[in-house]
């Protein structure tokens, strides 16, 4: 019997791993939502409605997790019993930390100067860096199976995502 506790990869019939075939993931997600979505159950008894909401919620959570590289990496570590310890483990390579500081400074200055172009440029550089980390993760998880190293990369990705959010917020603030 399927249950709501099974892992997200199994739910979509995908092999467990960092590299995910996005088309296949999306198709499986839509196929499942097509069966479980509350719109299919609006005319049915309450027991069915309740189940439908649980499953549709679960499918959305699973899809959201597997779609995003950061969430997927984090989830894979969790499945393997590794805590990425975002709050406590901040031991990063000096080079990475230097780059982070540089970017933060640039963000602060651009925010101060309300410079949209600089912000956009910064966002582009971070996206580039992001892509590099994602490629590394595929190797670390799926080829080398080195979870400690992967956890370190996931932590870096988390840093970058936070920075991306802040840039987005700064851009949004410029518009209003």
């Amino acid at each position, binding site marked *: 019997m399927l249950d709501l506790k099974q892992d997200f990869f199994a739910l979509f019939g995908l092999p467990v791993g960092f590299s995910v075939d996005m088309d296949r993931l999306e198709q499986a997600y839509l196929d499942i939502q097509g069966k479980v979505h509350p*719109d299919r159950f609006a*005319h049915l008894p309450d027991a069915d409605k309740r189940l*439908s909401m649980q499953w549709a*919620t679960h499918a959305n959570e699973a899809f*959201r997790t597997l779609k995003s590289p950061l969430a997927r990496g984090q989830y894979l570590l969790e499945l393997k019993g590794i805590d990425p310890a975002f709050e406590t483990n901040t031991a990063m390579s000096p080079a990475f930390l230097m780059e982070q500081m540089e970017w933060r400074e640039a963000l602060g200055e651009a925010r101060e100067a309300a410079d949209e172009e600089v912000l956009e440029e910064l966002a582009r550089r971070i996206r580039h860096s992001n892509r590099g980390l994602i490629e590394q993760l595929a190797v670390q998880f799926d080829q080398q199976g080195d979870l400690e190293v992967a956890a370190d990369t996931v932590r870096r990705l988390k840093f970058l995502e936070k920075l991306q959010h802040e840039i987005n917020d700064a851009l949004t603030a410029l518009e209003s």
Partner: protein
Amino acid sequence: MALLQISEPGMSTEPHQHRLAVGIDLGTTNSLVATVRNGVALCLQNEDGRMLLPSVVQYLADGQIVVGRKAHAAQAVDPRNTIVSVKRFMGRGLKDVSHVETMPYDFVDAEGMVRLRTVQGVKSPVEVSAEILKDLRVRAERSLGGELTGAVITVPAYFDDAQRQATKDAARLSGLNVLRLLNEPTAAAIAYGLENASEGIYAVYDLGGGTFDISVLRLSRGVFEVVATNGDASLGGDDFDHRLFCWMLDNAGISLPSDRDARRLLMKAREVKERLSLDESVPIRMTLDSGDEVDLSIDRAVFVDITRPLVAKTLKPVKKALRDAGLEPDQVKGVVMVGGATRMPHVQQAVGEFFGRTPLTNLDPDTVVAIGAAMQANVLAGNRATEDEWLLLDVIPLSLGIETMGGLVEKIIPRNATIPTARAQDFTTFKDGQTAMSFHVVQGERELVSACRSLARFELRGIPPMVAGAARIRVTFQVDADGLLSVAAREQTTGVEARVEVKPSYGLADHEIADMLKAGFDNARDDMELRGLREQQVEAERVVEATERALVADAVLLNESEREALDAAIAALRTAAQGQDARAIKIQLEAFNRASNEFASRRMDKSIREALAGHRIDDLRI
């Protein structure tokens, strides 16, 4: 005389009755009801052959309530008791409403949702809206010749939880079974997408009487997926009227018009605005009650100039929605224009310039939302075969969070999360021995609680005394397919459940709704009881029918004794439903739900497996 229908030999009669379901566009200015008849969606007319019902309610001293055109005509005569644009007050406090100073109402200054004092007593916006919905329900029942199974009610996509809940409460109060709250731009996308077999990224720009929405959707074979939505829940055609109204006052040298004159001038402003969409110049002539003469003329260029900031204001949410969707304007394949206010040429022009393409105006911007809602209602009522159904994936417009120390917000569900969705977050105690915790639920994008909308407060009591920071209180947010939030809290180490009593900040408590329902029946207890009984009977019939159909398809999922137990439960429910005791039916319904739970789970399981199996077969073909 109605002719009796006989089906062709060899053809079975319909497996189940066509259920009467409608879509309702509850608008700021006008409301509509639509349904699908013989596979075609159409708006229903009233006895006078009109589709648009002005969203105006007049309370008369003799206890009568007038809704629609007549009330609209009365607004300048009896402004205090004639409520227009009530949608702007739904789920809102007095301080949230713009232009209060020019409104002729007797507002009741109290906490929570704004109330209006009328000749028939104090009214909540929920009750006023319920009158509009009741009018449309009666119109639909007359026109379709039977009781409605349910309705899809549309709401602006950018409505927050309090506004959505208020809308649902109004529907309940009007005697409608709400199949779903549907976002207006999404409804329009369904109508447009199905009509034009569209595929790709589309934006819906929906400027109504009082609200603005922008939704970005991905349309693909049978799937409508909202990628991002944004908007302004208090920006619409009304604001254009108001700018023109102020211009008229300035240019006619009138400083403080009476309530009646203000209403007449506002009505005039709307008329002039509408004419300016067609004519380059419009004369404005009227004699006010005060004796003042208004003799002006306005050019379209002047109107465009004074309302330019409003048009610019709509483009900010558009930019935000695109950023959230990770898209550039030129990646949008088409921009569907919805809402009467998009008839203004300078609105169309601004949108066209922003996206670099002419917006799509081939659907009637007044009716497209109701038509889409009717199509969705038809699906939700179960009138279509599952294979022809489309899948609709919508999102919540605004982040949901909890207040933490220092007046900051911890976001639990981010905006644009696909619904239904649930997220949990752990909190802990601040002091040693702390046994209670109070939570403040807010909605919005800002980091400070004071800049977000307050939704509700609740308390968790009975936490066992522990040292500070030892308790683990998990707060779970669940947003359902209507975009409505429910919250649960639980202490993890001991399992103490919150006795959560939610006090809505701008909503109505359950007992208030119950009181209004009672009052609505004019103390005719029998009527209300009869209605309650009828509702339970209909629900029982629905449940029995659905289960029997499921048993035909999936009997193999049950063994002999399970089958017997379920059959017995059906028989018991059926017997109860034939009686006249609403409570007895309710008890049997609950018992039945328990008995059928396992069967429902197994069917769900089977259909998910089928979905995955189908998918793998597709893969093999590639």
